[in-house]
């Protein structure tokens, strides 16, 4: 394994009593990379990540973090990584500052060092004025920021973020993604899971789209969009009667499309002309937009509602 690989995964599987959560994934994540695991609920993202940060047992396969075997060296791995779990897991028995200090003791950080690091992380996360507040009184965004500060207290080589912005208001989300950009600029290796495609597209150097425990595709967001969707998307609304007529015409001209109820998205390839597609249809609601990772996601994972 070359030294620039942070995480190496070979045929990793996780079987629970009643279901297979991760079904043989292969993956290499490089140092300094921001890597996104995307997928619908129940796709196996969180379970895959839990195995990476050694909070779930591996059923079979190989998993190396920073060159260390996750099956044997969990303790050492855990001392070198930082984790921000989906449920913040803050300790309601303690104040904001105490949460960091107590967590620092788990990491064997000496008391004075722990104080220095906690104070600077609280400043960084704009929580310094709340340091003596009980965590119960914090807003969702503040709690998440505290959980992030906690995950960084041991100056980790790799940071895992499970759904870091889910359930937060737009302001809090923007702030947190901005912070990740800063983290990224410091050459941290970041692995995250998210539902927010546009954010993943902006943040992640590479993404893997998962569904039903398998990785469907891995690549740079821009490459995936170009390869699987094309240069633009023409979207229009129609009615069930005309739908098949239009789809037939589009097929005849070699256009690919995705249909969600009565909305059709025509995927215009690099070699094709979007205007030609527009000429094939008659609808009051046509618009042309840039393709996004969301289109890739819907194409691969489908658009059916997922339940956990």
């Amino acid at each position, binding site marked *: 394994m070359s030294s620039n690989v942070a995480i190496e995964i070979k045929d990793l599987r996780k079987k*629970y009593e009643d279901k297979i959560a991760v079904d043989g994934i292969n993956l290499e994540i490089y140092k300094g990379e921001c890597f996104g695991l995307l997928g619908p609920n129940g796709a196996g993202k969180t379970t895959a990540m839990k195995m990476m*940060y050694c*909070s*779930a*047992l591996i059923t079979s396969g190989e998993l190396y973090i920073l060159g260390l075997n996750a099956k044997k060296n*969990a*303790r*050492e791995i*855990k*001392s070198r990584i930082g*984790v921000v*779990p989906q*449920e913040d*897991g*803050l*300790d*309601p*028995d*303690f104040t904001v500052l*105490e949460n960091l200090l*107590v*967590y620092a*003791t*788990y*990491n*064997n950080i000496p008391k004075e060092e722990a104080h220095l690091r906690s104070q600077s992380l609280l400043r960084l996360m704009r929580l310094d004025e709340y340091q003596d507040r009980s965590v119960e009184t914090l807003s969702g965004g503040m709690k998440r920021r505290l959980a992030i500060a906690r*995950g960084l207290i*041991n100056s980790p080589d790799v940071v895992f973020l499970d759904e870091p912005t889910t359930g937060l208001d737009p302001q809090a989300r923007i702030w947190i993604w901005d912070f990740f950009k800063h983290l990224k600029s410091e050459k941290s290796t970041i692995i995250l899971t998210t539902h927010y495609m546009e954010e993943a597209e902006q943040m992640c150097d590479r993404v893997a789209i998962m569904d039903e425990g398998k990785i469907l595709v891995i690549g740079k967001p821009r490459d995936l969009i170009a390869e699987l969707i094309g240069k633009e998307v023409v979207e229009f609304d129609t009615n069930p009667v005309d739908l098949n007529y239009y789809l037939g015409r589009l097929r005849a001209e070699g256009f690919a499309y995705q249909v969600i109820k009565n909305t059709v998205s025509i995927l215009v390839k690099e070699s094709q002309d979007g205007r030609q597609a527009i000429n094939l249809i008659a609808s009051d609601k046509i618009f042309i937009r840039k393709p996004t990772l969301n289109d890739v996601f819907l194409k691969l994972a489908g658009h059916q509602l997922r339940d956990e």
Partner: protein
Amino acid sequence: MRISELFTVPRFNDGAIKVWRRDFLYFKKTWLVSLFWIVLEPVIYLGAMGFGLGAFVNNINGMSYIEFFFPALLATTAMLVAFFESTYGNYTKLTHQRTYATIMLTRIGPDEIVAGELLWAASKGFFSVLGVTVVAIFFGLIENYKILLALPVLFIISCLFSCIGMIFTSIARNYDSFIYSTSGLIVPMSLLSGTYFPLDQLPTGLRYIAYLSPLTHGVAAVRYILHEGSLSLIATHIAVLLLTTWICMNISFLRIRKKLLK
């Protein structure tokens, strides 16, 4: 679960101390509340039973009622405080607060968590015993050094019920589950283990059942130490306590480990 697994020596590192210290830090923040329930309550029992009810009892096995009851009160206090900390307290940290899941994100593993928590609940039981002892000294109930010999036994009792509590925590589905263990086990034990009256008062069959209660051995050991019991009897009771503690400790390690790392 194999028989040999019940007698192993658990392996864990200094992370257990960090887990213990987390609980101690919280205890320091809330000591006044704790004081009320872990010290004041037993002292009120002592007053009600020893001085109130005891006034009607002249002699019980050659001692005054309060002399008879006090060792049992110490043992029962150790049991109750350790058991409740290990059930309600640990269940909260295992489920709602996700404290253990968070600790597991660090270099501390399941074995350190179990070890630290077992030791903490036992410590809390023991702190309570110390509190009651101090009050008892103040009221002149303890006159000699023998209490110093009884304290280690009371610590063993705390450990035992900390382990038993942890087993129930591993079985519990919700807080109501603890009603079974409390009403079905802990309360009967606290009443029928030679605590308020000598075991001879029980019908023969029930007396043998009472000997299955670990608290019976705890009460007997402490009482014999404080009131001139034979050395061999004391040793036997302590041996039963130690053996039960060791087995229950291993069961809690096995069960909680599986809960924490799936």
